[in-house]
């Protein structure tokens, strides 16, 4: 006997406790099973690309802070790389190392948020989240020491970073690195092979590699599907060619793999930070550039980095003026959302939240 059921359409978001900001999905449920998915975006659209056309090259750095507000350092870095490519300049080595170091610290912070909220969405009442935030606060403290702000850092500038680290930064960083080892271990003990977490996430919403490539997915989501693609390795920028690190790869591309890849990337980032601290040498951190930069008319540059969410690219076009003629932002979160339908269809309401969390989107970046 089949039971006749009536599909029920539910608006999940934009004010849902766990849609990562103001993301909205219109979902049709059959009981608890998802039969239709339609993502609705744009609630945080601020027109960053248009704003960038009216600001000079340095001022745009402050806009990039606000794209993915959980990884501002990496956004700054990506934009500055694009501008440097546009101007044909290269920052001094210490600047490169500082950028690499801060980017990896930011990657740790961002992945900690991703993992914390992922487990929060699985229903753990705040505990893993508080543990991850405990470590993240330390990183943000380091950022405050470095550049006076915790989230909207504006640390990188075209031609380097705005200032060298203060002398008390290095002992604080060492202290953090040694403390974080234990905190990370605690987190792994709590989460990495917890049976409930495994049961909830293994085999759920798998993303096959061919779909991942076809949907232009990038970052940890792509690597969780088993594809060895990391811009830090493929086209090393800044000081990434000077440091050794591994790329964790998943097997099935399910929720657990995406979570696992992030946990492992935190370890690898820690490794990179340690190497940066060991290798960095005194010297200038920023090129002497005029305050108002000008690029050659018609110059174009596509600068990209491996941000915490995926490939973050800035496509800059210059018309010879003081501000970019066009500043296209290739945001990983938006393009990773292409797989929403693939991930959710056929799974249950409870898995929907977790799968969305495992993609780790950030609405500041999706809507821009």
């Amino acid at each position, binding site marked *: 006997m089949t039971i006749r059921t009536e599909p029920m359409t539910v608006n999940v978001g934009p004010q849902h406790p766990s849609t990562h900001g103001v993301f909205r999905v219109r979902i049709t449920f059959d009981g608890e099973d998802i039969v239709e998915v339609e993502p609705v*975006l744009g609630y945080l659209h601020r027109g960053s690309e248009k704003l960038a056309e009216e600001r000079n090259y340095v001022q745009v750095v402050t806009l990039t802070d606000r794209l993915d507000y959980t990884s501002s350092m990496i956004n700054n870095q990506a934009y500055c790389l694009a501008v440097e490519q546009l101007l044909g300049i290269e920052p001094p080595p210490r600047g490169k190392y500082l950028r690499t170091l801060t980017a990896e610290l930011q990657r740790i912070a961002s992945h900690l948020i991703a993992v914390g909220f992922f487990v929060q969405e699985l229903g753990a009442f705040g505990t893993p989240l508080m543990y991850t935030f405990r470590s993240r606060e330390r990183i943000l403290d380091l950022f405050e020491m470095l550049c006076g702000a915790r989230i909207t850092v504006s640390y990188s500038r075209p031609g380097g970073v705005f200032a060298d680290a203060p002398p008390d930064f290095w002992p604080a960083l060492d202290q953090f690195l040694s403390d974080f080892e234990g905190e990370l271990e605690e987190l792994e003990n709590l989460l990495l092979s917890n049976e409930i977490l495994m049961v909830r996430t293994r085999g759920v919403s798998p993303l096959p590699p061919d779909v991942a490539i076809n949907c232009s997915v990038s970052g940890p989501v792509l690597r969780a599907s088993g594809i060895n693609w990391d811009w830090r390795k493929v086209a090393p920028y800044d000081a990434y060619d000077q440091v050794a690190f591994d790329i964790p790869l998943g097997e099935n591309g399910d929720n657990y793999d995406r979570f696992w890849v992030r946990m492992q990337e935190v370890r690898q980032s820690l490794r990179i930070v340690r190497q940066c601290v060991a290798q960095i040498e005194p010297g200038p951190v920023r090129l002497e550039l005029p305050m108002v930069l000008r690029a050659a008319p018609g110059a174009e540059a596509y600068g990209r980095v491996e941000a915490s969410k995926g490939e973050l690219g800035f496509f800059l076009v210059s018309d010879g003026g003081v501000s970019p003629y*066009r500043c296209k932002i290739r945001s990983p979160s938006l393009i990773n959302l*292409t797989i929403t339908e693939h991930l959710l269809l056929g799974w249950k309401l409870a898995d929907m939240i977790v799968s969305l969390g495992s993609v780790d989107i950030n609405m500041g970046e999706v809507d821009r």
Partner: protein
Amino acid sequence: MTLNVVSGETLAQRLREVVPNSVVEWNDAAVWVEPNSLGSVASALHDDDEIDFKYLNAISAIDFVEHFELVYHLTSIAKRQTGVVRSRVYGREEPAAASVVGVWKGADFQEREIWDLMGVRFTGHPNMKRIMLWEGFDGHPLRKDFL
């Protein structure tokens, strides 16, 4: 492990064999193609064994006032090479280009965004609606003449 850049010339030669009358011009960095042949160009590049552009990085649209320019950054993950395909779309009232969603699903949101903000319509896109702004919004904000 290095990243090769496929020059526009190579792309142009390949495209002229597979998709006739599609190539407009080329230089070292990129190849320019006809906007309404973008779909077949995309599948040609996607299926070609040598070029193997299975991964679409980004579609950018630039408003050069006299024309719109679409820039496709493409990557082959297996061959570790990148390339750029560009296309000029003329007209300001209802400029249109062929959609590449059938080839790269990742173009879905990006083409919708370009339609929304730049006003270039992609023919063949299954869901050509505004994405960031609401339906009924007047104008396309990223155009240079939008104030």
